[in-house]
């Protein structure tokens, strides 16, 4: 699975390890994040770990403004996501309410993509 921007540029490769209802949890195995996005998620992590929740809505609006999505198909069909969280230790999670995949589907498709 890939994290992509609104122009469908690949920003990160993701391995999904757990799906709980519409919550997808995994690891970033490789990333090409632009500095602005990386810096924003570092700030987001600081706010979360510092439990400075008064600042949550503002930074989450900023993150939503990036228009990030995920893709797993070869045709780069984008799946919209919400509540994207990326941590500096490489952990990633997001919610994908409109599409249901199994861990196997996500993993197999990512493998296919990397093999080509």
């Amino acid at each position, binding site marked *: 699975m890939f994290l992509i921007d609104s122009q469908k540029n690949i920003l990160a490769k993701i391995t999904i390890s757990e799906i709980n209802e519409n919550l997808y949890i995994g690891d970033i195995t490789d990333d090409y994040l632009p500095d602005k996005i990386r810096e924003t998620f570092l700030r987001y*992590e600081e706010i979360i770990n510092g*439990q*400075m*929740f008064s600042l*949550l*809505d503002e930074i989450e609006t900023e993150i939503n403004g990036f228009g990030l999505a995920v893709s797993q198909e070869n045709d780069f069909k984008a799946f919209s996501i919400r509540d994207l969280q990326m*941590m500096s230790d490489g952990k990633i*999670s997001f919610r994908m309410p409109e599409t249901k995949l199994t861990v196997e589907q996500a993993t197999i498709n990512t493998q296919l993509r990397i093999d080509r």
Partner: protein
Amino acid sequence: MMKMDDSLRKLRTALLFLINSVNWLMPKGISGECHIVHRIGGGDVNNLKLQPLEKQLEPPGISVLCGKSAYDASKQLKKAFPNATRLHEKAKTVGSAQLDDIKKVGFDVMPDPTKKFPNHGRLIHPEGVSGFNDINASKIISGI
């Protein structure tokens, strides 16, 4: 000039403090009344200190969650941030206090709902940043 700015800032903080005290009776986004609040990480003095970004808030303050139990607060937080391992570690300890006890030692909690936490509140002090000192913080801890 600087002293005037400080005085105005303190006056503004005090006014906001009063307004928020009234608002708590009918907090927006929070269903039901809030009698007890929880602070992830427990009631250690260091866990009640303002961080630089929190000093810039109007009024300055730290996050608390309103709810029935410390367990609920911890569970809510882990669900909201499934990968935040550092925060999960902190959430093993939760400090809880009655709103009345917080008020008795000079602090208050203003409703500050967010999309993730409609039960989010902000612990504030009428003196603003300077109110968050070790002496005042220890008064809250003694009440926990």
